[in-house]
């Protein structure tokens, strides 16, 4: 932590009639190092309502519900009078962006302090008017009271005076045991709008005179337009214009259907780029080869892999994880109006500041001339941290000056031309002594780093501190090893690679947790007991915490989660006939601990598009630190489980630089009869001082828990995703 405590709350816009505090958000315990610049505002209006204005995108994870809960608690306001307003980027709102499951983590502390500061200032204002000491006043549900005289002011009546008070150095925050809002289950704010069809997503933006566009892009990665003939496209009823943009050719029409029909009628000659020979089968071989030797070392315990020479025998396994797409049900889209000296963007983005910069660059406009309105997202999952769709839409609108244009990606576009979760290969090696005790451990990961923003340089891919940050789930393995070495090898691919729910973790955790299960089988140990041993449950010499990179891994929190699941799932009882149990756990790099126990049976005769098994029971324990809204936690666990189920059935494969899949029929995601009836969630550690985030961590250990059960049912280890019927047939 920085030694000089920097300012992160300041009175803004004094004299506006409202009490406005500028707030600076940053990760808990880390203070901003530069000068004060707010990235959120807390405004208490003369009518007593409170507004949090910030740049966190609602994408189903519930920030519009949890953040008001935090503020209401500390402000002592009626929760129903606090709301969130989506901020647009500008000089006052730098660094907006929603990703990495950090929304609650980064806002918790500043928001609490803002609430407490505002409350203290309102109390001071009331005390001044009554000419009493602030200590003799108290607050209650949006009002300051003076109990001994029975006097009372609503917050709204005090805001103008409160704005003239100085911001207290360290306002007293609520005693957490007295919390009445934080930690209680609250319903999602926009639930009623959704069931009435009134929630407006990016794709629902409608502006007067607006047109619709779709873009024809190079079928293979990196190709370019040589020439095109739009004669037939322009004959399609409703087509208004055909425009050339960097990535291809856009058809602009009166409605989306006409734009699609126009695009079908385009004739385009493409020149293939270097990506046109890319094939995912060949790539898989390359990845596997890259694990034959160790990559860059990102963690070394004891002697590292040198200790392997003391092993009497080794267990070695290679795990494969495929390319995967996001496939959120709302495809990406963006609406843009370009005028002579200004531009307005309506985007379902997770990264509005980047969108603003792209518009400024394409249109040569200053930041003050570009307004970005962040829309509700029909699922984010990391896809909307990319700005490819905004960039295209800005180019289209530039060619259509004066007319708002919505550029929509069809589902086919979305699956073929977006960015992907990278395929990866993991080679795990365990060295055992003659008594089957672990003496050395290796985890080598080979994969493609994110390349959608700026492809990494050779210096970066050789730098341990840099690549460690790309290897969640490998370097931060919570287990203690007598000796271990974790390595990472970067392998190039022409496919766009970028964030996907839980980012670098799912593949690493899949491989690691399945391999631990193999290890348990080899050593004839119970997989939960073996894990607890490796987490130090029976060995006081194993440190209960350790630091690696920027992370703190707390083994005792991991153990508690593991033990909770084992107990609640009655792990040691045999599975019912025809079923097997599976277990896995993980600490996500934000400090969230999750474990699953599942019960699975095989399902025969399923078509290829369906999972060849049924998950009957899911028991989850989660420690995500302080819980703001337990209802939200349960939702995120269910969501993570079902997301991971899709991961067990679908992949994107490439041939000749083209994705073979193009819609839900060939990239099938989990549907109702494949999902468990109930997901049993046990929240532990909720008494912690700060929250750790939950949108992503629940995904990672579910996949290996299921695969571990399936491996037992099939009588052979499954080391590759997706899981097909042939993988689980024992004959």
């Amino acid at each position, binding site marked *: 932590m920085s030694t000089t405590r920097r300012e992160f709350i300041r009175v803004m816009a004094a004299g506006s009639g409202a009490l406005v505090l500028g707030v600076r958000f940053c990760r808990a315990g880390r203070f901003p190092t530069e000068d004060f610049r707010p990235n959120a505002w807390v405004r208490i209006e003369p009518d007593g309502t409170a507004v949090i204005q910030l740049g966190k995108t609602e994408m189903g994870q519930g920030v519009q519900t949890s953040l008001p809960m935090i503020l209401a608690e500390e402000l002592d306001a009626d929760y129903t009078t606090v709301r969130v307003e989506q901020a647009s980027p500008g000089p006052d709102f730098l660094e907006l962006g929603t990703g990495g499951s950090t929304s609650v983590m980064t806002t918790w502390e500043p928001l609490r302090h803002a609430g407490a500061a505002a409350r203290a200032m309102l109390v001071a204002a009331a005390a001044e008017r009554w000419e009493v000491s602030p200590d003799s006043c108290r607050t209650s549900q949006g009002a300051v009271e003076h109990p001994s005289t029975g006097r009372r002011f609503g917050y709204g009546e005090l805001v103008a005076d409160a704005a003239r008070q100085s911001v207290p150095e360290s306002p007293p925050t609520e005693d957490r045991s007295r919390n009445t809002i934080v930690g209680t289950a609250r319903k999602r704010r926009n*639930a009623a709008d*959704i069931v009435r069809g009134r929630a407006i997503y990016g794709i629902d933006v409608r502006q007067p005179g607006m047109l619709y566009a779709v873009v024809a892009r190079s079928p293979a990665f990196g190709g370019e337009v040589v020439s095109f003939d739009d004669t037939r496209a322009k004959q399609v009823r409703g087509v208004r214009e055909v425009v050339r943009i960097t990535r291809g050719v856009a058809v602009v029409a009166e409605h989306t*259907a006409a734009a699609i029909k126009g695009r079908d009628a385009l004739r385009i000659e493409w020149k293939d780029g270097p990506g046109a020979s890319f094939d995912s089968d060949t790539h898989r071989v390359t990845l596997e080869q890259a694990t034959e030797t160790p990559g860059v070392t990102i963690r070394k315990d004891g002697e590292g892999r040198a200790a392997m020479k003391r092993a009497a025998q080794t267990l070695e396994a290679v795990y494969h994880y495929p390319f995967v797409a996001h496939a959120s049900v709302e495809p990406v889209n963006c609406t843009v109006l370009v005028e002579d000296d200004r531009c307005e963007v309506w985007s379902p983005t997770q990264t509005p500041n980047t969108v603003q910069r792209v518009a400024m660059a394409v249109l040569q406009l200053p930041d003050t001339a570009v307004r970005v309105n962040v829309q509700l997202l029909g699922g*984010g999952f990391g896809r909307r941290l990319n700005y490819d769709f905004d960039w295209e839409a800005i180019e289209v609108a530039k060619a259509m000056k004066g007319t708002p244009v919505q550029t929509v990606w069809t589902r086919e576009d979305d699956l073929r031309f977006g960015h992907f979760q990278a395929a990866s290969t993991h080679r795990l090696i365990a060295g055992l002594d003659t008594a089957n005790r672990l003496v050395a451990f290796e985890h080598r990961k080979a994969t493609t780093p994110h390349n959608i923003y700026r492809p990494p340089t050779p210096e970066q891919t050789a730098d341990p501190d840099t690549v460690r940050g790309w290897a969640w789930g490998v370097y931060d393995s919570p287990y203690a090893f007598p000796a271990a070495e974790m390595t990472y090898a970067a392998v190039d691919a022409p496919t766009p690679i970028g964030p996907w729910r839980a980012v670098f973790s799912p593949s690493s955790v899949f491989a690691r947790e399945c391999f631990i299960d193999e290890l348990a089988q080899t050593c004839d140990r119970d997989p939960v007991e073996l894990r607890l041993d490796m987490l130090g449950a029976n060995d006081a010499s194993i440190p209960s915490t350790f630091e690696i990179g920027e992370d703190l891994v707390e083994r005792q929190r991991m153990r508690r989660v593991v033990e909770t699941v084992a107990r609640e799932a009655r792990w040691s009882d045999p599975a019912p006939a025809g079923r097997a149990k599976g277990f896995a756990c993980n600490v996500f790099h934000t400090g969230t601990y999750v474990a699953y126990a599942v019960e699975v049976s095989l399902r025969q005769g399923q078509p290829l598009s369906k999972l060849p098994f049924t998950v009957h029971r899911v028991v989850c324990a989660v420690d995500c630190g302080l819980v703001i809204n337990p209802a939200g936690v349960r939702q995120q666990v269910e969501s993570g*489980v079902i*997301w991971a189920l899709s991961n067990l059935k679908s992949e994107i494969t490439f041939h000749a630089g083209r994705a073979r899949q193009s819609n839900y029929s060939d990239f099938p995601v*989990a549907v109702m009869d494949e999902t468990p009836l109930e997901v049993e969630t046990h929240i532990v550690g909720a008494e912690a001082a700060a929250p750790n985030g939950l949108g992503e961590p629940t995904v990672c250990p579910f996949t290996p828990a299921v695969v571990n059960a399936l491996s037992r049912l099939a009588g052979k280890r499954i080391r590759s995703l997706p899981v097909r019927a042939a993988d689980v047939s024992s004959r």
Partner: protein
Amino acid sequence: MSSTEIIVNGVHHLVDADDDTPLLWVIRDILGLTGTKYGCGEGSCGACTVLEADEPVRSCQTNLSEAAGLSYTTIEGFAEKPGADACQSAWVEEEVSQCGYCQAGFLLEVWALLGRKPEPTDDLVEKTLNDHICRCGTYPRIRRAIRRAASSRGGK
């Protein structure tokens, strides 16, 4: 060029578009009712579900010419249907929605199911909803909401 008459939420519209224009885009882009969602355009996600009379249909798989003269209800007009409220409040009570994008399709499909079968079995629920996709994973809550809606409709 001729125009085609369709009725949406009780309102008559004359639509100027090609006969093969999917009803989905007519509703969303021409009539401006955006509650009906696009998810796949191939009939596999259910986001575009609307009611024709009381039957759920995929508006992305229905051409304007097939829709001529017919009467449709979208999520915006859903509240007018008897029993709609039981579904909508069950959805809110069980906190089904996450991003919410897919939910209009589920709601209309479920309402029609409860109309045919006031107390559907788990099996029937699965069969009916298997071609609806929710990427946020709200299926367990949808099951619960269906049970709640069924009991509050009292088997009517």
